[in-house]
């Protein structure tokens, strides 16, 4: 395939992915808006007003960046895992596998689809948050960079989960038992400076802590961790996961007989 044909193939996959999640917007775009509004009301307004300051900001100001990031993470992940697995389940993935579309285009297409959903939901949640608090932007470049990299990272994770999944149960195991606990313990609702030293050290092993803190830094200008260190860490993880995903596609594991 020449470059033009590869571009058409990539556009087709991305268009298909965006068309899929916008067609079922009641299942994909509406729920995070409602859930996050409840978080803003309950944690931000009702409970937050009694908590007082966190890291030098009101609790609502502190919690909003974490909740936006949480939406980006879960939606990027779940878009790719559900779309790719259901293509595998219905065998419609064979449509792409028999075509000359190169594996890296297939991967990139699904990842961009996941990123698109993560970013759209992130924007929706951000708009919802404006009803509850003022949102300032301290570092726009860092904000855009970390949101893009985070959505890419979790889209890749969703892709790998989908390749290994053998049933619809398998695609909910990782979000339920790994992703959600890590997100809740990743400094979305609290600053890790509140934790004893030992648990601070344990928290540093949680990759979600880094992306949440970098995003909070881009909004508020404060972070529990080193921003540059977090960027490098996320980039390294992306390279590792992208290599693993391409390896899975090249070898056809769980995809070809």
């Amino acid at each position, binding site marked *: *395939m020449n470059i033009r044909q590869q571009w058409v193939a990539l556009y087709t996959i991305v268009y298909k992915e965006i068309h899929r999640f916008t067609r079922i917007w009641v299942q994909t775009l509406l729920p995070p808006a409602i859930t996050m509004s409840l978080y803003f009301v309950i944690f931000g307004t009702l409970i937050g007003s009694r908590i007082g300051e966190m890291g030098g900001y009101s609790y609502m100001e502190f919690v909003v960046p974490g909740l936006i990031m949480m939406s980006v993470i879960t939606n990027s992940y779940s878009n790719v895992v559900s779309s790719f697995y259901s293509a595998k389940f219905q065998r419609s993935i064979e449509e792409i596998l028999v075509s000359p579309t190169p594996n890296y285009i297939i991967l990139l297409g699904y990842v961009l689809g996941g990123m698109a959903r993560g970013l759209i939901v992130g924007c929706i949640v951000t708009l919802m948050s404006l009803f509850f608090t003022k949102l300032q932007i301290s570092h726009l470049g860092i904000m855009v960079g970390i949101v893009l990299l985070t959505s890419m990272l979790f889209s890749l994770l969703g892709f790998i989960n989908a390749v290994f999944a053998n049933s619809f149960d398998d695609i909910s195991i990782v979000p339920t038992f790994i992703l959600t606990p890590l997100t809740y313990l990743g400094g979305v609702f609290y600053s890790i400076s509140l934790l004893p030293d030992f648990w601070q050290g344990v928290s540093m092993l949680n990759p979600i802590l880094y992306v949440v803190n970098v995003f909070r830094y881009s909004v508020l200008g404060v972070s529990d961790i080193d921003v540059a260190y977090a960027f490098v860490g996320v980039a390294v993880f992306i390279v590792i996961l992208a290599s693993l995903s391409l390896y899975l596609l090249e070898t056809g594991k769980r995809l070809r007989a």
Partner: protein
Amino acid sequence: MSDALVINQLEKSYANGFKALKGISLKVEQGDFFALLGPNGAGKSTTIGVICSLVKKTSGQVSVFGHDIDVDFSKAKQELGVVPQEFNFSQFETPWHIVLNQAGYYGMERGLAKTRAEKYLKQLGLWDKKDTAARTLSGGMKRRLMIVRALIHHPRLLILDEPTAGVDIELRRSMWSFLREINEAGTTIILTTHYLEEAESLCRNIAIINDGEIVENTSIKALLKQLSKEHFILDVRDTLSAPPKLNGYKVELLEEHCIEVEVEKGQSLNAIFTELNNQGIEIVSMRNKANRLEELFVSLVSKSSTSESGAAV
């Protein structure tokens, strides 16, 4: 001019040790209408899977219009269109999107894809269903949708894995004439089917695969010449109580107005008519007892299975 498909010593073994293909070799010429027949589990779908990259081969070479799939699978895939045995499209998408997406995976510009999609969807009677979810289509429509999808990038080699399974006779006949049309226009077609009448009617050359091995690879004409005898059913006007005596022919009375005659290779049908006429028996109609190819198929497959089990002993 390179062949449309060349398979050389193709083997496929699975992790559990099962050998699905035991070194098959096959050649399909450009423009051919080729039948790949075999019983269930013989290796037909595995062979097709290897050609279109859904199954990884263990060893051997496959080339499509001179493009070795190990060297340039991308070019080989451009030449290929595949209609699989089972429905493999998203049930939630519409035929229009399914076909346009497939065109996109082959790098086709949207404008051209839309023109071709409209042409083929109309030709195969799916145009008025183009915007309905694929899951609501009937079985026959789903099969036709897979044909449209396979043709959208104008492949030079079209592989159809049991395309008319579960399709009613009228629709099957219309699919046959459509396939004949595109074959005459230059597309090479490989067809697997369980309807041997279909292979006899459509195809020029044939390979029979059994237990992962090619047991016959020849033209349909040459294969039919191997028939040593045929059985004809004759409906007669008169009421018969016993089979009429026909010199040199084995005759059986099926019903009081129906007889079966076994005709050996080289024997004449005229003699039957003459003798029955002399006996005052009027023939109303005559037909083959079974599909001729079916008889050959059964005999070839059972012969190969017998020699296999003999070798194993």
